[in-house]
């Protein structure tokens, strides 16, 4: 056992049904940190970027970070990496919950799945005891059913209670391109990696670990955690009385509306009439929230356990997140809170990305409203605001049933099928999250240049552009800000921390936790350089996969149609003002290709 790292990589060959345990290459760890960094590097080294994402030659990598499971605040995350069946780029999806920590306690930083199993299987890990078990009886089961059934197979309730499961639902099995890998209602949601898992006939991973982890300097590490927990406890957003703890991520709703940055009716506008009424987070708190829930080692606890009681939408589960409310709700013009939450529950059960699912349904609604799609084809009167259709279609997407089979391909492929690809809103074929690219120029640049398509977390520009309303429409300085934030988020994602961690930990907390846990003696610049290395490594994968400068863009609506409402009214995304400078700052040529000097400086030559 090393420090902070578990020190082992588990490589599973699903075609042969065997596995081997390898030592974690510590040189690799120092250069790529962990999680997204190590996962991306393994993918680049071992997978041809032109591989069929849903074929046996793609690999599916689960990678934790060095701070995952150490007790560092928010240190719970794991990253899933594979070539994406949605975008064709490198795909990565991050999840909280308890799975990542448990995997490390069992002794593994990374699992690499290769090949394809002949029959459905799940991987069982109990410290050193590893087994591929039959999963035909789990095939077709929802994610919570799968979780319960696997736990029921274990010999006692205590063992079951300690076992953490990451699995796919029906959506992943049916190769839905917007499917999410779930662990106890936390989702590794984006880029459709559950479909890669489904293509390998891998239903789930169940893990229990009793080995624990070693940190290099326990006393200093504990002292720093204690100091940070005190900051979290009284923090206006993250503390016990803080908005994120009290309301969950939905706390951002009013801010999004005031900024005019909401994805109203397939991103045709930026404000939504119900955002500060039916969809106000206080309404949610008073009517549907059962209690807050925290991921492993999280002092914030922004997750919600919720219950819906409205006739036709009864349910129990987790969520909704801000993104879920916005995309399943506002993007579809739906103001019925309980219907949105119900649709979110269904996404969790089916294993679907709520962002992509919402945008895809919204895209179908726009096609319908503009007469490009008929009621006969859709099976519904698909007008914006139709809550019943939202809930019914969500389930149909997960099951690839009827019209849902077409939506299961994602918004881009659906819109193209009906002859109107311009109705798709996103980047690199991935659906856009709930932050407008027109009022928030940096966010737009982030979407255009993200290595996995339209992603709000790759540059986390919401925290930079939301609080200061008025600066969102400015392009000046944004290329540098986006570049820096992209590298910071690569560090966060690779350490195993949450996207909300920087708000309290930056930068001294992250550095101290990293150094005292790993025993490495990094400067902040070393971590950020690793972030830049990770970003460029991902870029190289995409370039090899055939992506070019032409793909560093977003849907035409963002670039050509002025925002009709809100404080950013009249704005379009002025990408051409920012992209050349962004390339220059990155040390890339005018075609977005990294220079030899840059690659040499990053050790990627």
């Amino acid at each position, binding site marked *: 056992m090393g420090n902070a790292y578990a020190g082992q990589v588990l490589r599973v060959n699903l075609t042969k049904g065997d596995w081997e345990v390898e030592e974690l290459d510590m040189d690799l760890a120092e250069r790529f940190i962990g999680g997204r960094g190590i996962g991306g590097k393994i993918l680049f080294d071992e997978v041809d970027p032109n591989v069929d994402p849903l074929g046996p030659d793609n690999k599916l990598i689960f990678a934790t970070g060095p701070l995952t*499971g*150490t*007790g560092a*605040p928010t240190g719970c995350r794991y990253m899933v990496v594979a070539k994406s069946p949605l975008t064709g780029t490198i795909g990565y999806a991050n999840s909280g919950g*308890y799975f990542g*920590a448990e995997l490390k*306690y069992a002794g593994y930083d990374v699992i690499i799945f290769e090949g394809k199993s002949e029959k459905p299987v799940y991987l069982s890990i109990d410290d050193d005891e590893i087994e591929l078990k039959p999963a035909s009886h789990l095939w077709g089961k929802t994610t919570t059913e799968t979780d319960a059934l696997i736990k029921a197979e274990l010999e*006692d*309730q*205590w*063992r079951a*209670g*300690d076992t953490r499961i990451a699995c796919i639902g029906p959506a992943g099995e049916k190769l839905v391109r917007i499917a999410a890998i779930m662990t106890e209602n936390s989702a590794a949601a984006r880029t459709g990696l559950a479909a890669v898992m489904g293509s390998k006939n891998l239903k789930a991973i169940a893990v229990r*670990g*009793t*080995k*624990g*982890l*070693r*940190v*290099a*300097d*326990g*006393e200093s*590490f*504990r002292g720093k*955690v*204690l100091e940070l*927990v005190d900051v*979290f*406890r009284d923090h206006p957003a993250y*503390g*016990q009385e803080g908005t994120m*703890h009290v309301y969950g991520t939905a706390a951002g709703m009013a801010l999004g509306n005031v900024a005019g940055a909401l994805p109203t009716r397939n991103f045709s506008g930026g404000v939504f009439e119900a955002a500060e009424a039916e969809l106000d987070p206080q309404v949610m708190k008073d009517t549907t929230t*059962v*209690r*807050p*829930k*925290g*991921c*492993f*080692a*999280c*002092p*914030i*606890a922004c997750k919600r*356990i919720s219950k819906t009681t409205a006739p036709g939408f009864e349910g129990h589960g987790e969520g909704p997140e801000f993104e879920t409310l916005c995309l399943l709700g506002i993007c579809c013009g739906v103001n019925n809170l309980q219907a949105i939450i119900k649709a979110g529950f269904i996404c969790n059960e089916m294993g679907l990305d709520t962002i992509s699912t919402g945008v895809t349904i919204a895209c179908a609604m726009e096609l319908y409203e503009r007469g490009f799609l008929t009621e006969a084809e859709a099976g519904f009167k698909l007008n914006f605001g139709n809550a019943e259709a939202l809930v019914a279609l969500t389930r149909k997407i997960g099951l690839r049933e009827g019209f849902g089979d077409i939506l299961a391909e994602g918004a881009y492929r659906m819109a193209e099928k009906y002859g109107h690809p311009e109705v798709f809103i996103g980047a690199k074929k991935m659906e856009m999250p709930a932050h407008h690219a027109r009022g928030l120029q940096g966010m737009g640049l982030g979407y255009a240049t993200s290595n996995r398509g339209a992603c709000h977390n790759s540059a986390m520009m919401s925290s930079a552009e939301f609080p200061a309303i008025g600066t969102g429409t400015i392009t000046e300085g944004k290329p540098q800000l986006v570049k820096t934030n992209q590298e910071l988020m690569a560090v966060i994602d690779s350490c195993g921390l949450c996207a909300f961690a920087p708000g309290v930990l930056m930068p001294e907390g992250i550095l101290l936790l990293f150094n005292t846990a790993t025993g490495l003696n990094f400067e902040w610049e070393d971590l950020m350089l690793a972030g830049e290395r990770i970003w460029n490594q991902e870029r190289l994968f995409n370039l090899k996969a055939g992506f070019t400068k032409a793909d560093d863009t977003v849907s035409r609506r963002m670039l050509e149609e002025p925002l009709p409402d809100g404080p950013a009214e009249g704005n379009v995304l002025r990408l051409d003002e920012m992209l050349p400078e962004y390339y220059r700052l990155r040390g890339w040529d005018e075609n977005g290709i990294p220079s030899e000097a840059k690659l040499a400086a990053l050790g990627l030559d």
Partner: protein
Amino acid sequence: MTRIRIDYGKCTGCHHCETACSLSHLENIVNPKRSRIRVFTKGDTFCPVIAGPFTDAECTSKLSVIIDGQEYDECTICRASCPVKPVFKEPDNGIPLKCDMCGEPPNPQCVKWCASGALTLIES
């Protein structure tokens, strides 16, 4: 008398207390399975349980307890390190674990790391 007050209503299930306990008792090791506090989940409720006495015999009576409509197997919320439970024991050798309030005077680290307010220190 110093006590740890546990409020199930506030626990968010983040298990941070388990990492605090193991790190403070084992110096450089974080391992919830060796922690003297464990958080168990029952329905929508998270139940922090702090290791109490060791017993070498299983209970001869079994209880179910209903609190606010939620039924608990009493073993789930019992503090004992006992033969029927693998918790509150060293995973490798079965040596029982018991909360020691992190020494004298009491300074329990689980309470210090608990951001939700589920664990507090009180005098009574």
